[in-house]
């Protein structure tokens, strides 16, 4: 199964590193993967999105016209990508920041108050990881284990202390989404 995911939001929300984490996770599992960012003109603020393709075979086009999943972190991104998600696809909405819902009935839509959940864990900043937890739980494309390994790799020795918090965030996301 080929997963074509777009993660989109404001610059500074960590969209790129979320994608990167998934890419590393996919590599952990020996899958083929491509990661392609797209920025607006702004350095910070403005919109940004990243396309991640995870596939059992070599990735052809890294560009995604119609994603199988989308994670949206702000309203403009919701508006842009909601119509593009493939029929049968999934949409993950950071509902603390986006209070829209789609009219489309052919896609699955999950609203996740990721900031609130993260705040409860003690740090707003892991909202992205919460969303990733929800994402892997619903798509089953990657295991929690590989994502944990990816986190480990990304943090390295220096930021090792952030690991427990992020694992907790992953799990919180997974747990939250089970209720849908």
């Amino acid at each position: 199964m080929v997963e074509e995911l777009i993660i989109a939001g404001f610059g500074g929300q960590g969209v790129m590193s979320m994608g990167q984490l998934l890419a590393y996770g996919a590599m952990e599992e020996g899958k083929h993967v491509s990661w392609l960012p797209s920025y607006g003109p702004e350095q910070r603020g403005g919109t940004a999105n990243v396309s991640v393709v995870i596939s059992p075979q070599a990735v052809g086009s890294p560009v995604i016209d119609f994603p199988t999943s989308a994670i949206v972190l702000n309203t403009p991104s919701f508006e842009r990508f909601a119509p593009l998600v493939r029929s049968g696809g999934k949409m993950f909405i950071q509902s603390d920041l986006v209070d829209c819902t789609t009219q489309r009935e052919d896609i699955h839509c999950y609203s996740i108050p990721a900031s609130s959940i993260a705040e409860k864990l003690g740090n707003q900043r892991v909202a992205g990881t919460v969303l990733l937890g929800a994402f892997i739980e619903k798509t089953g494309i990657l295991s929690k284990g590989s994502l944990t390994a990816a986190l480990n790799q990304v943090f390295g020795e220096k930021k090792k202390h952030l690991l427990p918090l992020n694992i907790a965030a992953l799990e919180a996301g997974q747990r939250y989404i089970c209720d849908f």
Partner: protein
Amino acid sequence: MKTVFKRTTGLTDAETHYCPGCTHGIIHRLVAEVLEELDALETTVGVASVGCSVLAYHYFNCDMTQAAHGRAPAVATGLRRVLPEDRLVFTYQGDGDLASIGMAEIVHAAARGENITVIFVNNAIYGMTGGQMAPTTLLGQKTATTPEGRSSQLQGLPIRVSEMLATLDGAAYIERVSTHDPVHVLKAKKAIKKSFEIQRNRQGFSMIEVLSSCSTNWGLTPEESLKWIKSQMIPYYPLGIFKQQPCIGEES
């Protein structure tokens, strides 16, 4: 109720794309206010350069043309030599644009005494392209291309452009100002106004170097950034007037 401060008509209605707290926004406003005060919006042609301020032509409420990276002084010269004398021509350039790739153009515009105003935004870094070293990057400053900090051995010492251009006879007025607090912002505006007045008097080339922040690429908050200007930049880039030729009246 009296209005003490309101948005100048020198700016268009567009919202800027600058990062939160970027002082490009303040400098834009100052130039726009000056043009409004001088009643010059309809007789001014501005030249945007390539850097974070590349979209300046969206923001200034006067005729604008967009120049290739570093070449704004040449484009301004083309305009200057062609337009009627009552027109004002200015460039708005970053430190990468003006002091690196565009060094030949700025030196020669100054040497020719080209009757233009140059707004030189020195933020000690390449903002637009993601925080690489600029010719004005301070020693020890870490950037994308000086990961260990700028070293005098490898990259040489930062260029003080105002001081250097002041050695040229063609330069009529050169001042360095800053944006790190309200008082200095006011001074900056005065300097900018003066430089346009000098152009109006056909006295020749003038340049205002404005110390500016880039919190995004400095890795600081906007407030910390202004403190960094004060504590780090000003000691190396002292504020003040570096060249002031006698007014036409004063000559003799």
